[in-house]
């Protein structure tokens, strides 16, 4: 099941915990992968670990010009981009009343606007191929909100509305557009939480544990697969029951 042999996938934010796991899962299913991120070192290590069918295509998505260039680079390396996984994201947490215009703009730029540009650039090839998969990683906080994350939650909720609109437009061309919304996942991003914070979070998760990056990757793999061709405009929540939406 979930055979991606012959397919090509661009994964942004692949140097992070979840992005790396997604790249591994797609590669493990037979896809050729292009790993993108800002840090070339970890990307190179990940590519070396994967062996064949892995390319490194660095990009800084806070630069508006970078998105179109990245899709071009990835298509150049792999021949096409059949699957786009928009995983790159940043946080600039602050209480709403203290949040600067910069903190707001940076998060919206990387987490939402760059996804718009990447998706637009990737669509051309997908339209011609009459097949494509766009999967964006959102967050449980896009559905529930979270104090201190007004910018992040806005961007993540924005991805959902954007994905649904695009899903309408391109469904007849064999292209699906979906989101995966992780809850609390064990990554460097959540390692920085204090034990007290972690305890409070775990108290709200029915499964009683944080999720693992490979559990997010499995959801992405499903949505990227030919088997998920009838799933579009959906958000798959992977959060241990923390928010049943």
């Amino acid at each position, binding site marked *: 099941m979930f055979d991606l042999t012959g397919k090509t996938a661009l994964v942004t934010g692949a140097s992070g915990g979840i992005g790396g796991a997604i790249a591994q899962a797609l590669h493990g299913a037979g896809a050729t992968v292009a790993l993108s991120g800002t840090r070339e070192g970890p990307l190179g290590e990940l590519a070396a670990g994967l062996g064949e069918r892995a390319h490194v295509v660095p990009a800084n998505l806070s630069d508006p010009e970078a998105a179109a260039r990245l899709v071009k680079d990835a298509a150049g390396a792999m021949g096409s981009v059949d699957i786009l996984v928009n995983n790159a994201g940043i946080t600039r947490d602050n209480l709403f009343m203290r949040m600067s215009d910069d903190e707001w703009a940076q998060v919206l730029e990387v987490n939402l606007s760059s996804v718009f540009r990447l998706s637009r650039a990737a669509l*051309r090839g997908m*339209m*011609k191929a009459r097949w494509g998969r766009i999967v964006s990683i959102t967050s449980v906080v896009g559905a529930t909100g979270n104090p201190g994350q007004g910018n992040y939650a806005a961007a993540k909720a924005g991805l959902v509305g954007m994905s649904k609109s695009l899903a309408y*437009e*391109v469904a*007849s*061309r064999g292209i699906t557009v979906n989101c995966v919304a992780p809850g609390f996942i064990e990554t460097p991003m959540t390692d920085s939480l204090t034990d007290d914070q972690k305890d409070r979070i775990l108290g709200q998760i029915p499964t009683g544990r944080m999720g693992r990056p490979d559990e997010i990757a499995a959801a992405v793999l499903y949505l990227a697969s030919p088997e998920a061709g009838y799933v579009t405009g959906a958000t798959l929540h992977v959060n241990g029951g923390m928010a049943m939406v």
Partner: protein
Amino acid sequence: MSDIADRVKKIVVEHLGVEEDKVVESASFIDDLGADSLDTVELVMAFEEEFGIEIPDDAAETIQTVGDAVTFIKGAV
């Protein structure tokens, strides 16, 4: 020059799956040939590739009929 018109018609016939005799200069892609808005975007993409030209968005919006496409492409190649 008629070569361009022929190539445009061929693309339209292939892409929209319409009868060749319906693809006349005055035929509107949307009103006469059953294209939806996404089809017109794809047609423009196909013209760009066939003729090796760039059709900017504001120009693409003015290409409503087969004749519009032929005229634009003649001016661009």
